[in-house]
């Protein structure tokens, strides 16, 4: 498989990245080099192998994923509004403020 300029532009779009022209051509080179190595995975026959996404259940440990009681306040209280907005690049004191979403 060979990644083209066009695919890099498409993936950048999916990733919410713009990338300069220089970055794009370097990305084509780097992704092809890395994927060239990764393609060796195809040497392995995995037709009868179940994929695993995480390893937590492999050690017989007692995890309680998504099984706790619903608690009104959550495990910890929510941050006060002022504190939640403190790191915002732009806010009006009540909401996060962002550039216009809908074009008219």
């Amino acid at each position, binding site marked *: *498989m060979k*990644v083209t300029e066009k*695919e*890099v532009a498409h*993936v*950048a779009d*999916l*990733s*919410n*990245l*713009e*990338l300069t022209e220089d*970055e794009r051509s*370097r*990305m084509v080179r*780097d*992704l092809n*080099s*890395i*994927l060239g*190595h*990764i*393609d*060796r*995975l*195809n*040497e*392995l026959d*995995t037709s009868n*192998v*179940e*994929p*695993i*996404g*995480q*390893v*937590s259940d*492999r*050690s017989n*440990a*007692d*995890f*309680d*994923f998504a099984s*706790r009681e619903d608690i009104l306040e959550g*495990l*910890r209280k929510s*941050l006060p509004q002022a*504190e*939640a907005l*403190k*790191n*915002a*690049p*732009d806010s009006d004191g009540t909401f*996060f403020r*962002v*550039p*216009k*979403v809908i074009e008219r």
Partner: protein
Amino acid sequence: MDLKSLTIDAARSAVQERKITAVALAESFYAKIESDDPQIGAYLTLSKDRALAKASEMDALAAKGEKLPALGGVPVGIKDVMVTRGVRTTAGSKILGNYIPPYDCTAVARMEAAGAVVLGKMNCDEFAMGSSNENSAWKPVHNPRDLSRVPGGSSGGSAAAVAADMAIVTLGSDTGGSIRQPASFCGVVGLKPTYGRVSRYGLIAFASSLDHIGPFGKTVKDAAIVLQTIAGRDPMDSTSADIPVPDYVAELEKPVRGLKIGVAKEYLGEGLDPEVRSAVADAVEKLSKLGCEIVEISLPHTEYAISAYYIIATAEASSNLARFDGVRYGYRADDAKTLSEMYRRTRDQGFGAEVKRRIMLGTYALSAGYYDAYYLKAQKVRALLTRDFDEAFKKVDVIVTPTSPTAAFKLGEKIDDPLAMYLADIYTVTANIAGIPGISVPCGETKEKLPIGLQILGKHFDESTVLRVANAYEQGRS
């Protein structure tokens, strides 16, 4: 006070017995940082107020004759990917350059509850992505043993600070070797626990199924004491395991005679530096002399680990890093007219080259048409790699390998060749893929006086045996 030989117990006893105050101890570490860190670059942010407040608290306890907790008055450093309330946390990235977290990472909170004095935040590769610390948006870290060389990555600052006596112990994070490899390069001890042993709450996520928090120290015992402090169930992380935490320090004393130590040929193949190979062979010989039984084993899928790892890690990263959009915190590009333009410019300007590369690779691997060929395939190979360890651990108690195929390389040597940089992680990514614990302990030096690391891998939640073998090796050697 001589900072060089200072361990946790020595520092805590000195404060307990009023030979030095915790405040004076912290001040002497800050003096050392001020004089030496400009050449090394291990710290990104100092948290003096917070450190001195905790130190005073410990001094007050000691003055009243009360017993100090395990890390009472001990100066520590925290990798800058763990959030600290009120103390700038950047993850080594411009996109979080002005971020002041409103809460504490559980591991950090547990360190402080045990009396640790947090000196500051340690330099690292941006979002923990890198093997040389050269991807920090702020400055590179120089290896204290040879300033022209990298300290390893991504927890380069955490490793270098311990090696250069600018903290007694530090916390790092390890997604593919980011604790063990820099420990090896800097000549210190670095431990990656089992997945689920230490809460990830407050760790800025890179790849959630592979990320781990763990300690650096000068000795195995110090690593054991820190693990003891930070391990255990945390309701804020549903992947943290609810199983008892053993007394790791007591476990260190158990004999290693009769333990079965696996040596896998796949970890001693092509690309392994001859000096590293011979140091590891010597280490195996020493373990055998200590009464361990050496068993040859095979981990047949090892050569595919890097490929599977860099698909899974980047796929998870591409999802985790979607949150950095310039809306709620961090950097925002100020020249955008629309929301979409704002997202793109913020991320373009805020992320460095390696982070963009990984977001792109991960998004590509998850995108329509490639998901089965890359992401699903990698998850199947993950199952094969995990099975390799399951089979091996039916025959042996621990597995020993080199931590890294070479000693520390030069700054700039691999920065233009991302694949070469990735391949340097060959011996460490497997433990993240399988979620098993692993430690790197110093095992000699090259002719150029560069440290070499021995990696010891163990069964899930069997840090005790890993630490015990590491400790026996460390003590037997001295």
